[in-house]
């Protein structure tokens, strides 16, 4: 690394704003896609938009690739560094800049954890709706990059629905201030285009988000079933009947066992084959009517029992169990392959059965947790990465599950993004013309293709020169 560049970065960011020592670079070698790791040359930790702009100008002049990083909770390698590149972390950009109660928006720096934004609004009777399971750690900037979802996006929509404005630092350090919360975009919807671009268009440094009123009444039901089929059918029927709960989440037996054995224990019955967590929010009359109809459907589908959370504390505990599910799986196996696919809600039962059979045939432990209301599945396959043969079976199962989801009319990813993991699958869903058009748009934002290169779009679609292979990739492993 050019010592002049390092000196200039150190001067700009201060001693705490730059990491160069190999030992300290280690945590930045991957995100939550543990199979792939690449050591970055440097990690920059700016504190402000101006510092981001300054460092991006320097890196632009040096021609270095850049990977932005929030909390590194992404599951598809979106924040995995590239060989010879620099990571720009928003970890020191954690200020909630403004909470405007009357106009119902907040402005935050990109590194603000999702849960902190919600906490900062609660006292005003407002909330920020998108609630990924990793919300204790994941950042708003990362949520923007991935268009993150969460259980409540069934009712409220994913991140893109709640982003009113952005400040973006582009590849060359240009600051694009789109932060004013207009009712509708003036001209093209650049903000909507940017959300979900996985760090390939630029770095969002500030985000203006929509705040919603905290619902007057909240009810949580826990329905217990003798089979996953029953739980899936309830969800399909609820959608068919046009019911509008806020969240519909399913956990299977293995997940329940893991959760109940962990610090996230929520009181789920260990002998249940599946539980369905239903949250209903709104006015008293809405909640009452919807709860009544949900109970009727649940009871029609062989539920063993339906429990209602008695108070806010119990609601919180039930949700903590759901949101802690991935973490709890650490008790079951050292590693977890978290698949993410979306299918039409009418196909839930069929696809869940398929994933179960695929894993059974390959002697893999499968723990299924999903945002059933959106048709967004997370079949989580337990494995040990130190066992290459098992890794191979896992990857094979993942591939089959993905292809089955596409076969029934689904898509590649509902909320985790494409990143590295699904880049090679994009051609299954998009034609060469589709991908070329995406490349054209990407090139407008980043003509030199230095922003998170090798992510999202297959290399051959953009015809870009292949960067040196990272130390470890799914393709490289046997």
């Amino acid at each position, binding site marked *: 690394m050019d010592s002049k560049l390092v000196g200039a970065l150190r001067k700009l960011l201060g001693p705490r704003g730059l990491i160069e020592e190999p030992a300290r670079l280690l945590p930045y070698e991957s995100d939550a896609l543990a199979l792939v790791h690449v050591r970055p040359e440097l990690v920059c930790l700016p504190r402000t938009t101006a510092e981001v702009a300054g460092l991006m100008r320097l890196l632009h002049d040096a021609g270095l690739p850049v990977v932005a990083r929030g909390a590194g909770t992404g599951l598809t390698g979106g924040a995995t560094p590239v060989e010879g590149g620099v990571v720009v972390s928003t970890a020191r950009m954690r200020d909630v800049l403004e909470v405007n109660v009357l106009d119902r928006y907040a402005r935050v720096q990109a590194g603000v954890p999702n849960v902190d934004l919600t906490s900062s609004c609660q006292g005003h009777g407002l909330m920020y709706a998108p609630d990924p399971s990793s919300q204790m750690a994941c950042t708003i900037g990362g949520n923007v990059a991935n268009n993150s979802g969460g259980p409540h996006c069934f009712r409220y929509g994913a991140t893109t629905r709640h982003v009113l404005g952005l400040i973006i630092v582009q590849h060359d350090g240009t600051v694009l201030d*789109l932060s004013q919360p207009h009712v509708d975009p003036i*001209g093209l919807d650049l903000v909507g*285009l940017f959300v979900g671009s996985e760090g390939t268009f630029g770095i969002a440094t500030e985000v203006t988000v929509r705040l919603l009123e905290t619902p007057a009444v909240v009810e949580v039901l826990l329905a217990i079933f003798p089979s996953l089929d029953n739980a899936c059918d309830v969800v399909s029927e609820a959608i068919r009947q046009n*019911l509008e709960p806020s969240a519909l989440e399913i956990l299977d037996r293995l997940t329940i066992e893991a959760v109940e054995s962990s610090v996230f224990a929520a009181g789920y019955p260990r002998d249940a084959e599946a539980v369905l967590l239903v949250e209903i929010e709104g006015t008293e*009359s809405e909640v009452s*009517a919807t709860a009544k109809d949900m109970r009727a459907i649940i009871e029609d589908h062989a539920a063993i029992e339906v429990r209602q959370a008695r108070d806010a504390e119990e609601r919180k505990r039930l949700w903590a169990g759901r949101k802690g599910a991935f973490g709890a799986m650490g008790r079951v196996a050292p590693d977890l392959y978290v698949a993410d696919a979306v299918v039409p809600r*009418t196909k839930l039962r069929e696809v869940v059965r398929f994933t179960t059979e695929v894993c059974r045939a390959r002697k893999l432990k499968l723990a299924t947790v999903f*945002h059933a209301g959106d048709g967004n599945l997370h079949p989580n396959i337990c494995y040990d990465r130190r066992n290459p043969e098992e890794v191979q079976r896992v990857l094979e199962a993942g591939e089959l599950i993905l292809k089955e989801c596409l076969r029934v009319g689904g898509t590649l990813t509902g909320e985790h993004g494409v990143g590295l993991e699904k880049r090679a699958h994009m051609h299954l869903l*998009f034609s060469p013309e589709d991908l070329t058009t995406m490349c054209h748009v990407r090139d407008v934002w980043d003509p030199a293709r230095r922003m998170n290169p090798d992510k999202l779009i297959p290399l051959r679609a953009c015809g870009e020169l292949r960067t040196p292979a990272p130390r470890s990739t799914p393709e490289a492993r046997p």
Partner: protein
Amino acid sequence: MSSSLGELLGGIVPSAALDRWDDGRDLACPRVAPETEAQFQAVLRLATAEKLKVLPLGMGSKLGWIPRPDRVDLVVSSLGYSGVTSHEPADGTVTALAGTVMSDLAAVVGEGGHHLSPAVPHGQRATLGGVVAAGQSGDDRMRFGALRENLLGTRVLLADGTVAKSGGQLVKNVTGYDLHRAYCGSFGSLCIILEASLRLHPLPEEQALFLARRDNRGDAFDLAGEVRNALVRPVTLLVHDLDSTLPHTSWTIMAVLAGRREVIDAETDVLRDLCPKASIARGSDVIPITKTIRDIELSSGQWPMLLIETRPSDLQGVLVALVQAAGDCGYRVKLLTHPALARAVVWLLEELDQPPEDKARQAQRIECLHAALNPLPLVARWRDLPTGVAQGVQPQGQYPTGLGLMRKLQAALDPRSILAPRLFRGTS
């Protein structure tokens, strides 16, 4: 050119004047209505080869929302390309071709038990492609969100004849770039919309219409605020003075409720307690009234129309300043306001005892008003600006931040500048 188009399409629609831009010149221009994707592609390739400027068109109801293009050589209509291609009631989605009329589409999804958002004014005069190209949200956006939030994906035709898609037909999907977010509201400057997929919402079991009147604007907005803060979730909340006849003013507060019967029962009880003298209609009485309001909102008459957007905290102050500024420029105004969205539709009325204005004088008054509104914290979007209005008055409001990037996107997707529409004056 005509013979080439005739060969391609087996006949073309005869020349038709683009009377939307009435400046006295006859804009006779061939218009074609392809019926297949292949025909659309062939037309665009011909246009590229012959360096034509192409105007994509649905029913033309929103032509006045953008500046008039400098040149149009060929109109490509979507009206021959219509129909529902996929309707999944059990999954709450619909996909249709661009020329599908919105009222027809609403009827189809209604049969499946869903409400189509956006509920646009004059649905029988709007196509899906036109609505998406214009980024037109409905008066139901308070409950169901803006169009761009319900748009799941598109299939589009680029200027070189390439067909490309983004998004999909699922309610949750983060695969690839959301290019449809850029296409939505691009008015045909980036591509021609061929097909769009929308998220649907449950059709309400019942509707109710709350109507109350107040003598002054302040009291009307206060009541609207109370309605909003009550335990109800309106689909629409409006405050308007369209029924005012001078010298008296009369303000109407209107809320449309929709949902389960027991929910509507409870919400109407709340509103009755809040405002005992209000009228509350239920069921079939509601639809004609809401349809009328909806159709009034964007009816274009002889008066230019203004759409104001601001923040909720600034709305009342902006409206006071707007009325004052309009008066200073010689206009009376009538307002249709969405207080929760901080948005107002403004009719600028000439004084009744004045002779009709010539266009030059009209243009002058609009520029006067535009200048007066400039310092205010609002975005002012103009509809159907008369010709002769200065370049500084942008139909879309103002030059946006990121205009340079927008132009690059336009150039990337239409490098030969085949597509005629431009979003901003002075950017051809």
